[in-house]
């Protein structure tokens, strides 16, 4: 188990180093000068030079990469070009919206998908099972921004139960914050739940055909008991992969939903920062997201090993 973990950890560190180089290089080649963007079309050449010097943009690229990466090792992510405050502060502020939103959506997705998948697998071929298949098909096909607009239309404009968007900040209370995140979380969760329910149903049905389930049944367990006590644990492996990927997706990919609900989340921040050529902010956020995705993948691998002892030995 330990060797397995070490191998995975080394791989993680190497990938992160590669990723940081790639992010820096990619962002460096995008045309567009942050100082020119900030000063607009009336800027004089001397003002531009002064601002570039103030932002440290006149240094050579390798030096800036070194400053960036060595700063991050010590938790110093640099100062945002546009906002002129520490990058870390901005990112943490935005994570306070994005992480709860992603978790909320994930919990909703699991809460919808798991019971449905278990019931469907338990009564495979039944009317309920067929209905689930149709519903998940729709859930996967419907784009979440469309769902978001529909939710706003029904629950904000017609019924007036929720405001159309925005986020008051957690200082206004947890209930208020959760309320603001509810519609966006539903919009994000529904397509995820559809995917999750499908994968889990398949996996459970697969598992039910295994010999050890037959053994368990022969020992006198009902089909449902066998499924619950022995099948679920094994059926969770592919589901875990999907869950891991979904969390990363929800964290990074909520840009459109954050725009529809004008939420001050990380996705929208990156979107703005790219347009404003706030390179240091983009670099840091993209890198942090890569760290998050890779770490989640690492944790999923570890979880695999815990759930299924067979993995620890053989496959990397």
């Amino acid at each position: 188990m330990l060797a397995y973990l070490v191998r995975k950890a080394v791989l993680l560190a190497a990938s992160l180093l590669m990723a940081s180089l790639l992010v820096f290089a990619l962002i460096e080649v995008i045309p567009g000068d942050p100082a020119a963007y900030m000063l607009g079309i009336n800027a004089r050449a001397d003002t531009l030079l002064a601002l570039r010097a103030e932002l440290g943009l006149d240094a050579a690229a390798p030096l800036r990469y070194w400053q960036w990466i060595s700063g991050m090792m010590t938790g110093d992510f640099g100062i945002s070009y546009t906002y002129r405050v520490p990058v870390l502060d901005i990112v943490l502020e935005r994570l306070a919206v994005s992480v709860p939103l992603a978790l909320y959506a994930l919990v909703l997705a699991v809460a919808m998908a798991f019971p449905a998948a278990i019931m469907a697998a338990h009564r495979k071929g039944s009317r309920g099972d067929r209905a689930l298949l149709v519903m998940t098909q729709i859930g996967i096909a419907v784009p979440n921004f469309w769902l978001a607009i529909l939710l706003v239309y029904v629950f904000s404009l017609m019924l007036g139960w929720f405001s159309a968007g925005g986020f008051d900040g957690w200082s206004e209370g947890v209930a208020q914050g959760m309320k603001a995140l509810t519609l966006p979380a539903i919009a994000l969760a529904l397509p995820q739940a559809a995917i999750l329910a499908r994968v889990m149903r398949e996996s459970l049905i697969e598992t039910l055909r295994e010999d050890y389930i037959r053994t368990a049944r022969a020992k006198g367990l009902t089909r449902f008991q066998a499924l619950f006590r022995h099948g679920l644990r094994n059926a969770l492996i592919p589901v875990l992969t999907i869950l891991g990927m979904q969390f990363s997706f929800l964290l990074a990919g909520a840009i459109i939903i954050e725009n529809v609900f004008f939420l001050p989340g990380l996705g929208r921040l990156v979107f703005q920062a790219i347009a404003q050529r706030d390179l240091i902010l983009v670099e840091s956020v993209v890198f942090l997201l890569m760290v998050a995705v890779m770490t989640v993948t690492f944790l999923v691998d570890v979880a695999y090993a815990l759930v299924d002892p067979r993995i620890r030995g053989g496959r990397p």
Partner: protein
Amino acid sequence: MASFRYLCCIAAAVLASFAPAQAARNSITLGMQLEPPHLDPTSAAAGAIDQVLYANVFEGLTRFAADGSIIPGLARQWEISGDGRIYTFDLAPDVTFHDGSRMDARDVKFTLDRARAETSANAQKGLFTGISSIDILSDTRVRITLAEPDGQFLFNLAWGDAVIVAEESIADIRTTPVGTGPFRFNRWIKGDRIILKRNPDYWGEPALLEEATFRFIADPSASYAAMMAGDIDAFPGYPAPETLAQFEADPRFRVTRGSTEGETILAINNKAEHFSDRLVRKAVAHAIDRRAIIDGAMFGYGTPIGTHFAPHHPDYLDLTEISEYDPGKARALLAEAGYPDGFATTLKLPPPSYARRGGEIIQAQLRDVGISAEIITLEWAQWLEEVFRGKDYGLTIVSHTEPFDIGIYARPDYYFQYDNPAFQDLMARLKKENNPAERRRLSQQAQRIIAEDYVNGYLFQLPQTGVINRKIVGLWENAPTQATDLTAVYWQD
């Protein structure tokens, strides 16, 4: 008993639903498309900073009134020397900054010296370069000497980039702006909103509102939803013109149609192949149907222009006839210039919808006379680099939002690359001129020269379309500068 409790619940619910409506009477929530990057109007070109802070939190020596004229600000009156070089300002007495410190002549000197310093990052540094010295005569009297007379000087001082700041609070101005205005900065929930509160110690006429909140909603359909749901009371620069008809039909709202300082032009690279020939530029101008562009790209909102000057300005000349829509004439002109079969060029478009939608219409109109323009879409940062600084383009569409900016045509290195010594000379004379009648004559002459030289294709003045709760009074309908002046705004019963 149960029914009594039930009644009490209903009564409480009804009361609760009334309470916020009552409280809302002296506060307002405004929608804005872009969030300010930071809160220092004197060190970025972002219009969003002025939209929140101009006249509300910060004040200059002079200021723009709703109609674009220049009125006294912190300087209550001034004298101009006979040669037009020395301005002596009398400041309002007993003015304090929001941190309680006094505002006096020293702050004026500090502000202007900072703006014109060598290391200054003021986006409009050009406004201050004519200043040769600033002398403090007393606490409330300050003398500014210019190297040369400048008829635009009082106007320059009204810009958001010239607001008075204090040395004591300058270090934190980007996050905690301290001004002298009728509102104090209260809170900034990044990404979501900025809240201002009334300044009880204001030196002038106090604000009527207790609190003002600016919320940032970039997406047009989200703006629509927020307005309809009642989350926003007013959206002065409403970004979704396609939905304005719905607001006009709704008795809760009032739709305002104002003008801005934004001349939207089809900019032409005057040094590029083909376009260095005036005949070709003239052909382009006659190939354009402004009305079709305004209808197609702006849903009918926008005023046609024939030169680079705001139609609401008293010195404006309507020169649209010089470049009226006449595709036949355009084809003949192209043939005369030696391009009977037309030619190919680029049309590089920045992100705003006026440019993207307008670009497609212009492409079709140019194709009609034989010019094939390849559309290349760019982000702002890319546009600034490639088109504005690199001058690597044939045609582009952009709105020039600075007030009274016809002077850019006197800069041969500007991205139009228009080099006309006679025009440059005219601008130099206009700059020094203080007499209003003479200024009018010169600026009209200038408008005519660039229209007849067909420097650019002049399309329309960018409109300011606002959606406002019917009970709100006092918001600007025009935008003589990018500001949301709240000093006279109140709720009507």
